């Protein structure tokens, strides 16, 4: 977990130095999720996630060199520099990416689970998604089919509140507005009725 944290902080610095281009979604703060998962599964169980995939890839057996090379677009990267931050894969360890379209990884994960059931494997698939993807229609379509067909899929929602950033900002403004309104009301009362001290 410590390695994962330091890796993500280093990636952040590299991104700000423009050595990593395009997108760079960081997993610092969420490390416990993938580490906890790995502790109880094996490499024949499959994991699929969205674009916040650096630590998940490391947990599945990826190396720091492969990760940083890929982030900086080098040949030594796990996708030979052709994928970038959002497209890490390690098929031999059961890691199927690394997907840029919000929510798309959930039906894909159900497909992996379908294949495990079809092959009569005794394994399961973990499809990770976030609070944003929780709104996607295809998630509910895939859940519906998984329930109908009894697929060995485990959906893991990592709610990092990324989707809510605007809502909190709005709530902050509303809170500020009402505080100012209350303050103005108190000042007005005090000036009009001379009630500066205590409440009436």
């Amino acid at each position, binding site marked *: 977990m410590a390695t994962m944290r330091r890796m993500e902080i280093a990636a952040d610095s590299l991104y700000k130095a423009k050595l990593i281009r395009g997108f760079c979604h960081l997993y610092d703060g969420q490390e416990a999720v993938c580490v906890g998962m790995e502790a109880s599964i094996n490499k024949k169980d499959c994991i699929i996630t969205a674009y916040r995939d650096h630590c998940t890839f490391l947990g599945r057996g990826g190396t720091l060199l492969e990760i940083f090379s890929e982030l900086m677009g080098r040949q030594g990267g796990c996708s030979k520099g052709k994928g970038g931050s959002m497209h890490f894969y390690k098929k031999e360890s059961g890691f199927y990416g*690394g997907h840029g*379209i919000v929510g798309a990884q959930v039906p*894909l994960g159900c497909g992996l689970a*379908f294949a495990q059931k079809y092959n009569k494997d005794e394994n399961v698939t973990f499809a990770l998604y976030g609070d944003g993807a929780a709104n996607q229609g*295809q998630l509910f379509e*895939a859940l*519906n089919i998984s329930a109908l067909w009894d697929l060995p899929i485990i959906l893991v929602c990592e709610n990092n509140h990324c989707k809510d950033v605007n809502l909190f900002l709005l709530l902050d403004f509303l809170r500020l507005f009402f505080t100012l309104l209350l303050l103005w009301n108190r000042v007005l009362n005090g000036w009009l009725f001379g009630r500066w001290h205590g409440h009436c």
Partner: protein
Amino acid sequence: MWGIVGQRVFRHGSSAMSLQGTRPAILASRSFSSAAKEMTVRDALNSAIDEEMSADPKVFLMGEEVGEYQGAYKITKGLLEKYGPDRVLDTPITEAGFTGIGVGAAYHGLKPIIEFMTFNFSMQAIDHIINSAAKSNYMSAGQISVPIVFRGPNGAAAGVGAQHSQCYASWFASCPGLKVLAPYSSEDARGLMKAAIRDPDPVVFLENELLYGESFPVSAEVLDSSFSLPIGKAKIEREGKDVTITAFSKMVGYALKAAEILSKEGISAEVINLRSIRPLDRATINNSVRKTNRLVTVEEGFPQHGIGAEICASVVEDSFEYLDAAIERIAGADVPMPYAANLERLAVPQVEDIVRAAKRTCYRSSSLAATA
């Protein structure tokens, strides 16, 4: 050898005269009837899928009504009874969901055949076709391969209106990572479907609803379970020397009829059945244009950024000096498909349009107006 017999049958029709003239002794001893075996495109597709499912247990079928209903157009008839509900799966009406599940299964090594009731509904799932299937092999630097087939009827049917009549050939053919096939005859349907299922990459297989019921002669070679056609090779359906006409799917039939009409007026047209839209067989097309010096491209879809546009560009890039006339592009009208029968007829290419365009390239039209 069987293939050559089959090709001769195609070129001259299935009249008993020409068959007796070309049939070698071995074939005569096998079949006692005077006509070659005929097969509908529907049966060709059904038998191809059946044989591939039988040969490889990783192949399975998924789509709406493919199982109990025997297929919306009966293409998958009998397969549920034969292979069971584990391999022939009826889905709810959730294209995005089941296409994603199919692609995920392909990631894991299975070989799904995903049916869209028509390709108009593929737009609901197009993110999975393009972003999850087509691009994954490249983005993963070869780690993830996606041996999936997306199949279904494409293009105009009859009276189904604007939202159910679009041709998606050029949309899918512009995307690197996809292979796009469009069969015309039963031989095409069998050979290309088998090639698509065996292919390790995602294949978009564009059928045509109005061709399902049409019968074509098939040789013994075509009926063999190991038969397949190469992806990326066009077929010269009819040889000619005055003008090249390229077409795919239902338009091949129209082009062949146009070639018949043109031959009576002294114009010998070479008809190319593209078979493969991506990769496009640029070599065959260019060689033909270098021979005839004139080109008419025919497609059912919308004209702008269509298949004809790509063929024009290819010929201008590779064979410009060989052209004796401007290239003619025949396509569907640039309008959403109308419902009324007379308007619908005007919105799709007809045989007369192809004949007129071919005559224009030969400077034989009666007036210089483009609508002549």
